[in-house]
């Protein structure tokens, strides 16, 4: 049971707070790539949500069980065929997008299954990342802690890139939040921000 993150620790995670702020109390949530389930548990405890996590990793699955959340073991790359269209208020993809092979596919599936989608990802356009590339190296930082040869991140993008993908997928961006070192960024977000959050819906809704 040592793997459970104490609620007070979770509350200190500003990325959780950023997402929680967008969630209406009592909403129905699908958390894709839910990891150890601590975000879903946080949302359950603070927003009284009902929902499910989706996770592929055995170790994380056990942590989800310990966190007492509903979790479905499934590979996101195969889509969300086990979930009905429009069956969730929010479908969350928290810091998982950049590690997915079928990036466009999962955004389409989020738009199908959820009334709204919430995505967070590390901003590759952050100036320190740009500097490291200019200096001849792939960036390694707090938000991108891996080296090029051991990273699970195969589809890194900038804010601009993601917004272009949204246009391509017929997703209307409802809200954006950019952070750096747990603080909101308003000035030159694509340069100054390390972590981006988007809330979006299907166009024509």
């Amino acid at each position, binding site marked *: 049971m040592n793997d459970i993150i104490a609620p007070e620790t979770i509350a200190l995670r500003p990325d959780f707070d950023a997402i929680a702020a967008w969630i209406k109390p009592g909403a129905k949530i699908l958390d894709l790539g839910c990891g150890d389930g601590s975000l879903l548990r946080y949302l359950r405890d603070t927003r009284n949500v009902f929902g499910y996590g989706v996770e592929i990793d055995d170790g994380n699955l056990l942590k989800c*069980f310990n966190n007492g959340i509903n979790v479905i073991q499934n590979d996101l790359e195969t889509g969300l065929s086990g979930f009905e269209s429009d069956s969730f208020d929010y479908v969350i993809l928290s810091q998982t997008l950049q590690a997915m092979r079928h990036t466009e596919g999962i955004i389409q599936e989020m738009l199908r299954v959820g009334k709204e989608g919430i995505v967070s990802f590390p901003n590759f356009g952050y100036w320190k990342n740009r500097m490291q590339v200019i200096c001849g190296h792939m960036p390694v930082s707090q938000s991108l802690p891996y080296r090029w040869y051991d990273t699970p991140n195969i589809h890194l993008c900038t804010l601009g890139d993601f917004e272009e993908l949204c246009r391509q997928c017929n997703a209307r961006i409802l809200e954006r939040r950019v952070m750096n070192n747990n603080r909101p960024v308003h000035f030159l977000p694509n340069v100054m921000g390390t972590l981006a959050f988007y809330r979006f819906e299907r166009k024509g809704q």
Partner: protein
Amino acid sequence: MQDSTSVGIVTPQYVQIDKPLQLKSGASLDSYHLVYETYGQLNAARSNAVLICHALSGNHHVAGYYADNEKNIGWWDNMIGPGKPIDTNRFFVIGVNNPGGCHGSTGPASIDPQTGKHYGASFPIVTVEDWVEAQANLAEHLGIEQFAAVVGGSLGGMQAMQWTLDYPERVRHALVIAAASKLTAQNIAFNDVARQAIMTDQEFYGGNFYAYDTLPRRGLRLARMLGHITYLSDDSMAAKFGRSLRKGELSFGFDVEFEIESYLRYQGDKFADLFDANSYLRMTKALDYFDPAAAYDGNLSAAFRAAKADFLIVSFTSDWRFSPERSHEIVKALLDNELNVSYAEITSSHGHDSFLMETPHYHQLVRAYMENIAV
């Protein structure tokens, strides 16, 4: 046997039930008895009872061992006991032999009180629904209004599901392991070959072999051999037996040569001496008939509308008889009804038999799930 995680010596108990059991087939059992075992203590609030439903060849002897035979260990002893995933320090666990079985509950080999002879062929076809009804009667006898959990693998998982449909108020959690909401055609086909092996055995006598003081041993043996192949995986058979030869060289005859032949024949022989052929026929029929969606035009989500329990669904990657896809169908139906459900797909090479194995990750998940059940 000084294992601190064993429930230790257990004693089967019997209950006579005189309330007629109305069967799905239209027939009824006017009275019947059930043999069961219990492990752990029922708490004062009677809120910690866990029912274990057995599969095709299982029975009420789920955990522990008998005083007169320490080697006769319960079939799920690795899962149930003090400190085990289904912890008898917290839960009051019940194992029961289903009617139609052959381990002490009323079945085809029992004496029909109306005729004074073995039921034999006249014993009715029993279904998963009928078993749930019988188990509900046992629960009443034990003073259990609501189970903390109903747990089962394979055919046992079907009973756990049926509980949540027939008695939604009487089960808080269902653990449905290596199961399916209905058998595939391929699965029914395997069952029918097994049945044909038994029914075409000359010693079967149309199911009334008791009167002839014989057993359709040959048919039952073949049925078990076939079944056993389908419960394992190609990989697990390759790993365990490969092409190993008993005598180290080919003998160019039809005696046992390969280790796998020896193993299957041994399993078949052992089973043929212990299991009742009529019970086997009925257990396979119960499997074939189970299909809760049938009454809802095949819509499993509609079938589960009645359910209120929380669910743990577990499948195993190498299980080709009750494949993960069958579990996905169950999970989908539960999601559609916004029920609490978790689903685990356990990586295991042991085929359908995986649910009986002590795979660490599998047991850790069941343990974690059970720990979260309030009693």
